[in-house]
C-alpha cells in the first residue's frame, strides 16, 4: 500500500502508472529545475563550440600573414563567435540560473508561467541551431559566405542587400530574433514570479541579493531587447521589401542602426554581467562567513546601474562624428555608471574583511572575479574618456576590455556558480582537486591571452582583421595571446571531466554542504519536484542563519 511518502516521491508508480521514458520527461517538462538545467547545459555546449571558434581565430593570428584560415572563414568565425557568446551563452546563462534558483530562493513551487518557461527554452534552442545551421545552408555571393560574416553588431550598410548578398545575414537576424523572444519570455516570467510568488513574509527587502539582481536584469531585458528586435525587423524590411531604413543611397542613415543597436547593446552588457554579480553575491558571503555588507546599498547600486545603464549607449559611437556636447555627455554618463559598479566591488571587499575566508573552488573563482572585474572596470573608465576612446575604440584594447568583463568576470563567476550549486542540482559534490586544476589552468590561460591584447590595441592593432603584416609591433603579443588558449582548453577540459565523473561518483552532498543561509539549502539535494514539502515563512534575508543561530538571528538587526 502506498504511503504518503511514496505518493509524494514517486506519484506515478504509487498509482500503478508506468514511468515515462527519461527522454520524454525532459522534452515535455515544464518544471523550472529541469528547464534551468536544460538552459545551463545548452549554454555550456554553445560555450564550448564558440570557444573552439575563437581558438581557431587565435591560431590564425598567432603569426603575421597567417595562412591557417582564409579571410572569409575568419570573418564568419568572428561574427558567429561573438553572436553565439552573447546570445546563446550569456543570455541563456541568466535564464538558466534564474529559472532554477529563483523559485527555490523565494520559497515557491515553480515559476509563474511554467509553460511559457518551456516555450522560451525551446525557441532559444531553435534560434541557436538556426545560427549554426547557416554554415550548411546559408548563401553568399558566389560562395562568399554561408554563415554570417558581418560582425556581431552587424553595422549598416554592410548588412544591406547591396553589400551582403545571399542569406547569411538573414540567418543572423532570424536566429537572434528567435532567441530574443526566449529571453524576453524568461524575463517576464522572472518578474511575475518575484512579484507574485514570494513565500510568506518575504518582503522585497528580504529577498536574496541573487533574486534582486535577476529582477533588475529582467527589467532591463524587457526594455533593452525590443530596440534590437525593432532594428532587425527594419533591416529585414530593407533587405526583402526594399525599405530604406538604413539604405544610405536613398537617404537612410547608417548611424540610426548604430543608435538602435547600442540602445540595446549597452544595457545588454549589464544584462550579461549582472547574473555574474548575482552568483558572486551569494558565494562571497557564505565563504567569508559574514552577511553581505551593505545589502541596501547593493540593491540601490544595482537599480542605479539598471537606470543609468540606458543613458550611456553612445560611448560605443564616440568615433562616428557626434557633436562635442554629445560626446561629453556620454563620457560623463559612462563614468557615472562606474560609481555604483565600484560601490559593489567595495561592498564585496567589505564582506570579506573581518570574515573567515574559506578558499573552496567557488570562492577562488569569485576572488579572481573581483581582481579581474576591477581591472575591467578601470579599462572601462579609460574607454569612457572620449579622446582616449578615439585611439582605443575598435582596437584590440576594446577586445581585451570586454573579454575581461565577459570571461574574466562573468565566466569566472559562472564557473564558481557551477561548483557552488552543482551539489544542490545533482546531490553530489564536484571534486575540489580537479576544481583547483580547472581554476589555475583557466586563470593562467585567461591572463596569457588577454593581458597582452591590451598592448596590441595601444600599439595600433584594429579589431576584426584576419591577418597583419610583420614589423607593426604586434607579433609578440599575438603569439603570447594564442598560446594562452591551450591552457584555457586544458582548464575547461578539467571542468568537463569533473562534471562527468562527479555526476556518478562524487561525494554525497546532503542538503547544505556549504553551511549556507538561503532557502534553496533547506530542501533536499536534488530538490523534489514540488521543491518544499511545506512552503516556508521567513523573518529575515537569511532564514537558515536564523534557524542555525537562534541566539543571534538576523531579524533582530534588519
Amino acid at each position, binding site marked *: 500500500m502506498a504511503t504518503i511518502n511514496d505518493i509524494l516521491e514517486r506519484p506515478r508508480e504509487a498509482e500503478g502508472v508506468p514511468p515515462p521514458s527519461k527522454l520524454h520527461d525532459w522534452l515535455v517538462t515544464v518544471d523550472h529545475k529541469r528547464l534551468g538545467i536544460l538552459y545551463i547545459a545548452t549554454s555550456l555546449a554553445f560555450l564550448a563550440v564558440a570557444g573552439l571558434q575563437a581558438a581557431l581565430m587565435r591560431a590564425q593570428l598567432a603569426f603575421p600573414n597567417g595562412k591557417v584560415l582564409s579571410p572569409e572563414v575568419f570573418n564568419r568565425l568572428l561574427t558567429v563567435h561573438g553572436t553565439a557568446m552573447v546570445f546563446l551563452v550569456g543570455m541563456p546563462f541568466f535564464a538558466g540560473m534564474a529559472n532554477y534558483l529563483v523559485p527555490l530562493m523565494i520559497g515557491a513551487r515553480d515559476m509563474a508561467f511554467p509553460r511559457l518557461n518551456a516555450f522560451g527554452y525551446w525557441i532559444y534552442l531553435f534560434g541557436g541551431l538556426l545560427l549554426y545551421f547557416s554554415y550548411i545552408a546559408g548563401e553568399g555571393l558566389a560562395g562568399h559566405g554561408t554563415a554570417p560574416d*558581418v560582425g556581431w553588431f552587424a553595422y549598416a550598410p554592410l548588412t544591406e542587400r547591396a553589400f551582403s548578398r545571399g542569406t547569411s545575414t538573414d540567418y543572423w537576424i532570424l536566429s537572434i530574433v528567435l532567441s530574443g523572444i526566449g529571453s524576453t519570455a524568461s524575463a517576464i516570467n522572472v518578474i511575475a514570479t518575484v512579484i507574485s510568488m514570494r513565500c510568506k513574509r518575504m518582503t522585497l527587502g528580504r529577498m536574496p541579493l541573487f533574486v534582486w539582481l535577476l529582477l533588475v536584469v529582467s527589467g532591463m531585458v524587457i526594455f533593452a531587447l525590443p530596440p534590437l528586435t525593432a532594428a532587425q525587423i527594419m533591416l529585414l524590411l530593407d533587405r526583402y521589401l526594399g525599405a530604406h531604413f538604413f539604405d544610405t543611397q536613398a537617404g537612410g542613415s*547608417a548611424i540610426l542602426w548604430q543608435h538602435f543597436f547600442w540602445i540595446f547593446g549597452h544595457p545588454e552588457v549589464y544584462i550579461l554581467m549582472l547574473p555574474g554579480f548575482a552568483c558572486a553575491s551569494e558565494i562571497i558571503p557564505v565563504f567569508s562567513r*559574514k552577511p553581505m555588507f551593505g545589502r541596501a546599498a547593493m540593491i540601490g547600486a544595482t537599480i542605479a546601474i539598471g537606470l543609468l545603464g540606458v543613458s550611456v549607449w553612445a560611448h560605443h559611437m564616440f568615433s562616428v*562624428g557626434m557633436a562635442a556636447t554629445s560626446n561629453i555627455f556620454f563620457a*560623463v554618463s559612462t563614468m557615472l555608471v562606474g560609481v555604483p559598479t565600484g560601490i559593489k566591488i567595495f561592498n564585496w571587499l567589505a564582506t570579506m574583511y573581518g570574515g573567515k575566508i574559506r578558499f573552496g573552488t567557488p570562492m577562488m573563482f569569485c576572488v579572481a572575479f573581483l581582481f579581474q572585474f576591477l581591472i575591467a572596470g578601470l*579599462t572601462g573608465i579609460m574607454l569612457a574618456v572620449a579622446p582616449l576612446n578615439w585611439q582605443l575604440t*575598435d582596437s584590440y584594447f576594446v577586445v581585451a576590455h570586454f573579454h575581461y568583463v565577459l570571461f574574466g568576470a562573468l565566466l569566472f563567476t559562472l564557473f564558481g556558480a557551477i561548483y557552488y550549486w552543482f551539489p544542490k542540482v545533482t546531490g553530489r559534490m564536484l571534486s575540489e582537486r580537479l576544481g583547483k586544476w580547472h581554476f589555475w589552468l583557466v586563470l593562467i590561460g585567461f591572463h596569457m591571452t588577454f593581458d597582452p591584447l591590451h598592448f596590441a590595441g595601444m600599439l595600433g592593432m584594429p579589431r*576584426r582583421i584576419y591577418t597583419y603584416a610583420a614589423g607593426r609591433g604586434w607579433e609578440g603579443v599575438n603569439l603570447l595571446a594564442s598560446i594562452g588558449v591551450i591552457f584555457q582548453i586544458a582548464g575547461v577540459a578539467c571542468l568537463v571531466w569533473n562534471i562527468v565523473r562527479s555526476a556518478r561518483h562524487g561525494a554525497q552532498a546532503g542538503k547544505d554542504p556549504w553551511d549556507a543561509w538561503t532557502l534553496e539549502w533547506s530542501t533536499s539535494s536534488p530538490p523534489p519536484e514540488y521543491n518544499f514539502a511545506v512552503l516556508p515563512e521567513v523573518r529575515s534575508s537569511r532564514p537558515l542563519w536564523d534557524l542555525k543561530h537562534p541566539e543571534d538571528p538576523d531579524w533582530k538587526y534588519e
Partner: protein
Amino acid sequence: MWCLWTAVAFGQGDHPVGNIFNPQATPAESIAHLSVLVLSVCGAIFLIVGGLLAFTLVRFRDRGNDGHEPAQVYGSNRIEVAWTVIPFLIVFVLSMATARVVIAIQNKAVPPHALQVTVIGHQWWWEIRYPELAIVTANELHIPVSSLAKPAPAFLKLQSADVAHSFWVPQLAGKTDLIPNRTNTMWIDPRQTGTFLGNCAEYCGTQHANMLLRVVVQPEAEFNSWVAAEKAIAVDSGAALFFSLSCVNCHAVSGTSATGTFGPDLSHLMSRATLGSGAIANTPETLRAWVKDPQAIKPGNLMPNMQLNVRELDAVVSYLSSLK
C-alpha cells in the same frame, strides 16, 4: 636600425608601429597627455583596491582554529557614503579633463589657408582628393610637416562610397569614421616627417584587414614637388592596349580617356610604396603579380582576375610602370 630598414624595405615607412603613447602630431599629443592623467588615476585605484583585496585575503583567511562564526557586520552608512562620494569626485575631475580635450580637438577652428583634403573610403581602398590643388590619388595621404613657427595643419573631410570605414593613424590622431551619406571632419598637425602607418578601423568586409593607410608627412619643399608631380599629366605613349581593355571602366589616369571611379586612381601609381592599399610592396614583380591575379594577393577584393594573356600582361605592366 634593422627594424627601420626592414620596415622601409617592406614599404612600411619609417613609423610602422602605431604606438598611441608616441604621438607625432596634435591631436594625438593632446590625447596622450590626457591619458597620463587617466592612467595615473586608474593605476592608483588599482593599487589601493587591489592591495586592500590582497590584504583581506591573507589577513582574514580561515585558519580553522575555532568553530565560531566571525562578527556578523551588516553595513555602515558612513562608509557607504564615503566610498560613494570619493568616486564621484574622481568622476568629476576626469569629466572636466575629458571635456577640455574634446572641445579642443573637435571645435578647432579651421585657419583660412589650411590644406583641405577629402578622403573617401571604399571597399578596400582610400580615395584621396585635394580639391583646391585639383589632385586625385589613392591610399597615400601626403601632407606637409607643421611646426610651432610655421603651422600647417591639414583638415580632412571624411566620406564613404559604400560602407562604414574608419581613419586611424595612431601616432597622428584618434580615429574618425567614414560613414556613407555623412561627412565627418578631422585635422592633423604633424610635427615629425616620415611615413606613418594606419589601418581602416571599422569592419568593412572581407579585406578590411588589408585596407592600410599611409600618411606621408613631408617637409614643405618636398610636399610642393610632390604636388607638382601629381598635377603633371601621367600618360606617355604606348598605351593603346591598356585603353582597349576594360581597365578604363574602373580606373582613372589623369589626362587620358580613362575616367573610371570604381577603383583607385592610377595616375601616379609608381610613386606609391605599396599596391592594394598596403597589401604588398610596389615592385616590378609584385605589380606584375597583382595585375595577373589580384585575388591571389588580396582575396575577395573587388578587382577581378582579368584573365590577361602574356602579351596583354606585358603591355599593361609596362604602361603602368610608366605612370610616375
